[in-house]
C-alpha cells in the first residue's frame, strides 16, 4: 500500500490579518470542569468557495469541523437552517447581530480554494460573537486534496483549544483490531482509522490472530502481538509501507503486551517462560532484552509514565490482579489499587496525573481513572465487558473496547470523557477492539 496522506505544507502558517487581530485571550472561554455543563452554541456556515471546484469541499470541511466540535459534548451546533447571517465573502466584516440573534456564541468562518498544484487552501477565523471580535488570529492551511479531512480536523483543533485552553485531539489516528466472523473463531486484522472512524485502512490480513496494537509516540510505527508462527510473538510494523518484522525472542516462550517507551527506542513487554509471565524491556535497535520483574506471579499490561521514569503494570502477586508502579529499571513496586474488585490494563495519561484502567467487580466491567497514588478512583463506564482504555492525545477523552454478551456478542470502540460524560460509539466497519490512540499529527 502506498502512503497517500497529505503533507500539510507550511502547516498552520499564520495568516496576515488586518487590524482586527486579537491576542489569544478573548472572553470566549469554556472551562472543562467536573460539573454538568451546558454545551456552548456555535455555528459553522459552509466555507466560502473561492474557486468553482472547491464548492463541495466548502460544505464537507464545514461538516467535519462541526462534527468534531459537537462530538466533544462541549459544543452544540446551531444548524444552517437557523442561520440568519450569510458569509459570502471571507474578508467582509461579520454582522455579529445576525449571529447573536440565534445565540451562537462562537462562529467559525472560512474560505477554501484549490491552488494551481491541486492543493486545498483553507483560511479560517474564529469569532467571539457576543464580544464582537475575533478569537486569536486567522490562519491558512494548505494540504493535498485527499487530505481535506485532516485540514478540517486541524481547524476544529484550533477552535477547541482556543476556547477550552486545552490541546486538541481531532487530527489524530487510532490503530485497532478489526474483527469479523463468529465468536468462536473470530478473524482479526490490524486497521488504522482517523479518530472519528474515517479513512479506514487495513495493516494486516486476517490469516492469523493479532492482538493489542500500540502506536509509537510519533505514530509512524505499531507494535502488536501475532500468532503468525503459531505462538504469540511481538511484531513491529511501519505504518507507511506496512512492512513488519518479528522482534527477537527466546525459543519456547511467548511474548506479548508490547508498549513503546516515550522516546520510541525501547519496547516494554511481557515474556512467558515455563508458564510464568514477567516484564522485560528490549532495545529495538540491538534486540537486547533486560528483565524487570522476577516473580512467580503474572506481571503484564505495562505502561510508561510520559517522562519514561516509571512503569504502571498489572500483577496478581497479591492473589488477584491489581495495579502497581515501579521505577522504569525495575525494582520494588508500590501497589496503587485497593478498591473491591480486579484491576487491569493500566495506562498512564499523557499529562502524567492519572492512570486509566479496567476494573472487574460484581460481574461487571468498568473503565476508570485514578491518581497515580491510587487516590480519587472514579469509574467512568459500566457494562458486561469494557476493557483496554487508551488516551486521547490531550488526556481529556478515553477510547476503549465494549463487548456485548452472548452468542451474538460483538466488540466495538467507544469514547468517554474523563468526566464520565459523553459516551459515544466510534463508527467502524464491523467489530472492533483494542484501540490505541496515536498522537496529534504534525
Amino acid at each position, binding site marked *: 500500500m502506498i502512503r497517500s496522506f497529505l503533507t500539510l505544507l507550511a502547516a498552520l502558517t499564520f495568516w496576515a490579518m488586518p487590524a482586527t487581530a486579537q491576542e489569544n485571550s478573548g472572553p470566549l472561554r469554556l472551562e472543562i470542569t467536573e460539573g454538568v455543563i451546558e454545551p456552548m452554541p456555535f455555528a459553522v456556515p459552509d466555507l466560502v468557495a473561492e474557486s468553482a471546484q472547491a464548492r463541495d469541499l466548502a460544505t464537507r470541511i464545514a461538516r467535519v469541523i462541526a462534527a468534531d466540535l459537537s462530538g466533544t459534548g462541549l459544543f452544540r451546533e446551531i444548524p444552517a437552517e437557523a442561520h440568519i447571517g450569510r458569509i459570502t465573502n471571507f474578508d467582509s466584516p461579520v454582522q455579529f447581530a445576525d449571529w447573536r440573534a440565534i445565540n451562537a456564541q462562537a462562529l467559525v468562518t472560512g474560505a477554501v480554494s484549490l491552488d494551481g498544484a491541486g492543493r486545498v487552501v483553507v483560511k479560517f477565523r474564529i469569532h467571539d460573537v457576543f464580544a464582537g471580535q475575533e478569537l486569536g488570529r486567522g490562519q491558512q492551511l494548505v494540504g493535498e486534496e485527499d487530505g481535506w479531512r485532516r485540514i478540517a480536523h486541524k481547524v476544529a483543533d484550533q477552535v477547541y483549544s482556543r476556547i477550552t485552553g486545552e490541546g486538541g485531539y481531532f487530527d489524530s489516528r487510532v490503530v485497532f483490531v478489526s474483527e469479523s466472523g463468529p465468536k468462536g473463531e473470530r478473524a482479526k486484522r490490524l486497521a488504522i482509522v482517523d479518530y472519528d472512524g474515517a479513512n479506514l485502512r487495513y495493516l494486516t490480513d486476517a490469516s492469523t490472530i493479532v492482538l493489542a496494537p500500540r502506536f509509537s509516540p510519533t505514530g509512524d510505527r505499531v507494535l502488536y502481538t501475532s500468532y503468525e508462527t503459531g505462538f504469540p510473538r511481538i511484531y513491529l510494523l511501519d505504518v507507511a509501507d506496512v512492512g513488519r518484522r518479528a522482534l527477537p525472542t527466546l525459543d519456547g516462550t511467548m511474548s506479548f503486551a508490547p508498549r513503546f517507551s516515550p522516546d520510541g527506542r525501547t519496547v516494554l513487554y511481557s515474556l512467558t517462560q515455563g508458564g510464568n509471565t514477567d516484564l522485560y524491556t528490549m532495545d529495538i535497535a540491538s534486540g537486547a532484552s533486560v528483565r524487570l520483574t522476577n516473580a512467580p506471579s503474572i506481571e503484564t499490561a505495562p505502561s510508561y509514565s510520559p517522562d519514561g521514569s516509571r512503569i504502571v503494570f498489572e500483577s496478581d502477586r497479591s492473589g488477584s490482579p491489581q495495579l502497581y508502579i515501579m521505577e522504569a529499571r525495575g525494582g520494588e513496586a508500590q501497589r496503587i489499587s485497593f478498591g473491591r474488585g480486579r484491576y*487491569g490494563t493500566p495506562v498512564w495519561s499523557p499529562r502524567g496525573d492519572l492512570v486509566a484502567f479496567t476494573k472487574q467487580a460484581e460481574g461487571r466491567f468498568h473503565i476508570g481513572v485514578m491518581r497515580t497514588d491510587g487516590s480519587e478512583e472514579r469509574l467512568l463506564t459500566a457494562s458486561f465487558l469494557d*476493557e483496554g482504555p487508551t488516551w486521547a492525545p490531550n488526556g481529556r477523552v478515553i477510547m476503549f473496547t465494549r463487548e456485548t454478551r452472548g452468542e451474538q456478542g460483538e466488540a466495538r470502540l467507544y469514547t468517554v470523557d474523563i468526566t464520565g460524560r459523553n459516551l459515544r460509539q466510534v463508527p467502524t466497519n464491523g467489530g472492533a477492539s483494542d484501540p490505541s490512540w496515536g498522537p496529534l499529527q504534525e
Partner: protein
Amino acid sequence: MTYLSKTIILVAGLALAACTNPDRFADGDGSGTGGAGLSGAASDPTSSAYFQQAVGDRVLFAVDQSTLSAQAQSTLDAQAQWLMTNSDYTAVIEGHADEQGTREYNLALGARRANSVRDYLVSRGVADNRLRTVSYGKERPIEICSEEACYTKNRRAVTVLAAGSVS
C-alpha cells in the same frame, strides 16, 4: 454388548467429537502444531482420534485457577500413559481462559494452565522435548454463550497431538 450396539456407540462418539473439535483454528497456518486433527479411526488405539475421545484431550479449570483437580489429574495420567506408548507423537498444550478477564491477563492465565498440564505430564514420565505450550487467552472459546455453563468448558487446556518432533 452386541456388535450393532457397539457400532452405534462408536458413531455417536464420532459425532460428538466432530462438534467439539473447533480447536484446530481455521485461520490459516496459525496453529503451528501440524494440525493433526482427527486421524485414523477412534477404534485404533494409536490414533489421535482415540486420544481425543477415549483418553480425553482436555482438562478444565476453576475460575482464575491453574491447579489440576483430581479429575484433571486422572485424565492427564491417561494422557501420559498414552503418550509414552505412542512415542511418535509430539503435542502442543493449548491453554485457554473464559471471557471474564482482560485480554492480556487471560493470555498469561492460559499460559499458566498449559504449563501446569505440561509439568504434570513430564512428572508422569513424558519427555519434555515432546511438549510445547501456547496460550490463546480468551481468543478461542469452544462455547460462546456468556454463562457459567460455557465458561466452565472454556477454562481449559487441550493437548493437541502432532506427528513428529516439536522443535
